[in-house]
């Protein structure tokens, strides 16, 4: 009997991988389309990111003469780390083959590897923009990782499980109910997600202004298939964060790998979550402007405070709850 | 005619001969020969200890042997010293110098072996006068000032010690009656319980000030740094270092009388507080006086005060193990300090003669460039003073600190602090002294054969500290138990 469950888990994981890797560019395209629509422009077709990636892959990459032998390593390192992280986050069903691995701290560690690789890519060729971008990214990473860990504390204590899968199932089955600390945690994790994926308030993904860019500055010297890898990594990171927030905060109809019948429900919920998320993100990005670099630490300081408050209220609630 | 008596008489009788005849070099060779005879005699003293006025007990024998050994090694390095320094003083002064060397050794041995407290006092007084003459040998103004200070403070100390001796005699009257018997240390020690307690306390105050001056404890230490810094080092520093031991042992013996009397509630006050307060005072004043010294002899003079302070502190704490630690500390410190001063003399000789101002740290710096074996010798001996493990003093300081915690825990804090500051101040000098750039006008020089003998000192220190032979352990612990 257990062999069947394992087999089903593997099938679920493969399906999950296909969906995540396939839909990543689509999500970026959808958000771009929605932003353009909100600004009154028709905007590029939803499948534009696929075309961009195909174009980049076919172009021969131009390696700067001052780059060292590791120039080709960083894109692969960043991509592999983020892809592994993606496989850990459940999208439409729990109990996947990667469920026991999906510890939140491992997830944060893998994202840190990806971030480190991107920073090193920025410093690789030894020109001004890469270094400046890497420095800013280091600054933001400090605050976001601190607040993320505090959130992990809140989730682990509420969900009684260290793994994302466990937390999700507890949230789905155990009737947790709306609690103040979860509200703070949601606000905090959204802010951290925006920082990690480099969306509007922290960094302008569409903008090319050298002085203001953070993530793009590190990829300045890359081209061809290596740049494609970096862009695809960014897309993967966005869809991973969407799925993570979705799994933790709205796991209600997600299926179980053991009962294939529940998968379609989970799938529908996942697609709905993605669409709703992209609408919200597009609306948010259109309505706010990019912050000055040195106002971001205060913004992230507030996020960290929210994280700690969620923990504190958790203890207060636990105390009151007895 | 016991070996002990011979060991005392030979140097004292040879002194006038040395003082009247012979060139400086001849004087140094005779000095060496005399010491060559004295060392076996001091070793033989363990068996034929002599009786009556001059009876060497366990403590006297051990420190007598150490004195003999240090005397011989100083005589060896003295030969090179005299050859280098001959033109600096007139022949008559060199004769006085060699005579005073022999008087110093003779009086030290007399002080160690004397059973009669009057004879002990005469020995200490003789050593003071010979050291004063030694210090005044060079004609410089600062040497004269050092000699005058030595004479005034030393003389006052001696006078107080004599008064204390007389009061002890008076305190012994009711038990031992008039005559020589009342002055014998052995007799006093046996029936210490029945001495007149209050008179003994008064005597102890005077003795503490008298022999404390000779042991250079803090309020009375003024003479030592200048005495070490002026005059020919072998006499004024190395040999007078041996005199510190005599004074410390005297203090230990009188402390035992007081402690036994106090234990038997004979009316005497407890000697402990007197001693460890002086010990701590020495430790702390030297701890902060070592930081600003520019002259190396004065610097190591202060470190001698620190180490005699530690020994007196150990005696003040009391208990067999603490006294064992204190005695071990005195033995190791004597060996290390004499090795250090010999190395300094040789180093200064290599840096253009051991003139009065050639011992400044800035003059002696960067010894590694001049001569490697001597540089390492200097480094090891200065390092040995700090008490960090490879140096033997670690064992004795470990014993003293562990006993302090068990008997008077609150004192371990000031003791630890004092030792810490002194160790840092001393270790600070090793770098500049050995490893920096040598002054411009110094060229590499070859060291004489004598360095081997000085290295023997440090090897002896390691053996005594870490692999003490059985017989020494038993005899020292018996002494410590007896003097509890």
């Amino acid at each position, binding site marked *: 009997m257990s062999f069947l469950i394992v087999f089903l888990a593997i099938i679920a994981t493969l399906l999950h991988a296909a969906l995540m890797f396939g839909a990543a560019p689509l999500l970026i395209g959808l958000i771009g389309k929605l932003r353009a629509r909100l600004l009154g422009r028709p905007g590029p077709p939803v499948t534009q990111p696929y075309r961009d990636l195909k174009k980049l892959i076919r172009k021969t990459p131009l390696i700067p003469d001052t780059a060292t032998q590791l120039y080709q390593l960083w894109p692969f390192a960043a991509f592999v780390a983020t892809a592994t992280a993606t496989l850990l986050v459940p999208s439409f069903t729990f109990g996947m083959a990667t469920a026991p691995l999906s510890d939140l701290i491992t997830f944060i560690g893998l994202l840190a590897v990806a971030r480190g690789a991107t920073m090193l890519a920025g410093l690789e060729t030894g020109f001004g923009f890469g270094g400046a971008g890497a420095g800013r990214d280091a600054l933001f990473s400090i605050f976001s990782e601190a607040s993320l860990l505090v959130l992990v504390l809140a989730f682990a204590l509420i969900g009684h499980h260290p793994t994302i899968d466990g937390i999700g199932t507890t949230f789905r089955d155990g009737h947790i109910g709306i609690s103040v600390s979860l509200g703070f945690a949601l606000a905090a994790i959204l802010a951290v997600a925006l920082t990690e994926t480099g969306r509007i308030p922290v960094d302008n993904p569409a903008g090319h202004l050298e002085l203001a860019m953070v993530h793009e500055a590190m990829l300045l010297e890359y081209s061809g298939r290596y740049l494609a890898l970096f862009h695809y990594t960014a897309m993967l990171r966005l869809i991973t964060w969407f799925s993570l927030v979705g799994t933790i905060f709205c796991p209600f109809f997600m299926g179980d790998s053991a009962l294939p019948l529940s998968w379609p429900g989970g799938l529908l919920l996942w697609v709905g979550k993605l669409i709703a998320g992209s609408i919200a993100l597009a609306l948010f990005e259109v309505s706010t402007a990019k912050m000055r670099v040195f106002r971001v630490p205060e913004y992230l300081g507030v996020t960290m405070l929210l994280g700690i408050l969620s923990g504190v209220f958790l203890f207060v609630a636990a105390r009151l709850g007895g | 005619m016991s070996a002990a008596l011979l060991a005392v008489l030979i140097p004292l009788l040879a002194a006038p001969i040395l003082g009247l005849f012979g060139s400086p070099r001849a004087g140094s060779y005779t000095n060496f020969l005399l010491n060559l005879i004295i060392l076996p005699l001091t070793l033989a003293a363990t068996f034929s200890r002599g009786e009556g006025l001059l009876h060497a007990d366990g403590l006297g024998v051990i420190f007598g042997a150490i004195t003999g050994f240090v005397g011989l090694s100083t005589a060896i390095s003295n030969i090179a010293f005299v050859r280098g320094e001959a033109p600096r003083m007139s022949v008559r002064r060199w004769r006085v110098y060699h005579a005073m060397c022999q008087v110093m050794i003779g009086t030290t041995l007399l002080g160690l072996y004397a059973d009669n407290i*009057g004879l002990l006092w005469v020995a200490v007084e003789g050593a003071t*006068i010979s050291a004063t003459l030694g210090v005044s040998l060079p004609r410089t*103004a600062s040497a004269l000032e050092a000699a*005058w200070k030595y004479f005034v403070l030393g003389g006052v100390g001696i006078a107080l010690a*004599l*008064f204390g001796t007389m009061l002890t005699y*008076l305190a012994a009257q*009711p038990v031992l009656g008039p005559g020589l018997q009342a002055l014998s240390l052995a007799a006093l020690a046996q029936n210490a319980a029945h001495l007149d307690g209050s*008179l003994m306390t008064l005597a102890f105050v005077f003795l503490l000030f008298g022999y404390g001056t000779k042991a250079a404890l803090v309020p009375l230490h003024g003479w030592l740094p200048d005495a070490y810094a002026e005059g020919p080092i072998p006499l004024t520093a190395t040999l007078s270092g041996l005199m510190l031991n005599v004074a410390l042992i005297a203090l230990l013996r009188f402390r035992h009388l007081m402690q036994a009397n106090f234990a038997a509630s004979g009316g005497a006050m407890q000697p402990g507080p007197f001693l460890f307060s002086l010990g701590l005072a020495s430790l702390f004043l030297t701890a902060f006086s070592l930081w600003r010294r520019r*002259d190396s002899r004065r610097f190591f003079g202060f470190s001698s005060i620190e180490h005699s302070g530690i020994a007196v502190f150990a005696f003040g704490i009391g208990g067999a193990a603490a006294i064992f630690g204190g005695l071990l500390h005195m033995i190791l410190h004597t060996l290390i300090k004499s090795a250090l001063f010999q190395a300094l003399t040789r180093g200064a000789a290599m840096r253009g003669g051991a003139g009065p101002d050639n011992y400044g740290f800035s003059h002696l710096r960067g010894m590694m460039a001049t001569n490697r074996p001597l540089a390492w010798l200097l480094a090891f001996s200065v390092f040995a003073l700090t008490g960090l493990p490879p140096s033997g003093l670690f064992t004795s300081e470990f014993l003293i600190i562990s006993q302090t915690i068990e008997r008077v825990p609150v004192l371990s804090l000031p003791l630890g602090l004092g030792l810490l500051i002194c160790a840092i101040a001393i270790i600070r000098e090793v770098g500049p002294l050995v490893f920096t750039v040598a002054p411009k006008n110094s060229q590499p020089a070859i060291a004489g054969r004598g360095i081997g003998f000085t290295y023997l000192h440090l090897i002896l220190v390691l053996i005594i500290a870490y692999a003490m032979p059985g017989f020494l352990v038993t005899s020292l612990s018996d002494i410590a138990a007896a003097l509890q």
Partner: protein
Amino acid sequence: MSFIFPLVYPLAHLLGGVMLLCAFSLLSQRRLAAMISIYQIEAIVLTLAAFWQGFAQHATELYLTGVITLVIKAIIAPIALRQIVQRFNLIRAVETAMPVGLSMMLGVSLIGVAVLVVLPTTMNSVTLTREDLAISLSVVLLGLLVMTTRRNALSQVIGFLSTENGLVLAAIGMPGMPFVAELSVALLVLVAFLVVGVFVFRVREHFDTLDLTGIEEIERRGR
């Protein structure tokens, strides 16, 4: 002579008192020559005390001590001191390290301390020794006070010699004190005198004045 003449105690006490008076007056002397003569008187009185104690205790060696004290301390020392004063024409040298009134008061309080200390501690010994001890302790302390309050090297030496006299007085007072002590004290005086002589000569050569300010100046130079 098992019984003791009724005179023994008062006479010894008298001689001790005179010595104390000399030591006390040393404090207030302004001129060196006067100090030397007072010291000479003190030495002579000490000799008499020694003879008297010898007679009272029937100890022959006390007579020998008296002779030594007479020869060295009462005769040779003052002559040598006067010769030094002569050579360095210090007859009129006047120096007051401390106001005379203050030093007198200090002297009195010192005697008080000595008496306060000696009397209770020597309750059970013979009254003669108790008296004698108190006086000799006072003379010793006064000698030390002279040494600390005088700026002239020679007057410090005289203070030192007066302390020695106090010690010999104490030694004589001890019944049955073996001979060794006296000889050594004598030895001390003799050699001290030699050393001092050599010193004073060299002090003269270096500082052309016996005043200690020259020496103290050296100490102030940080070394």
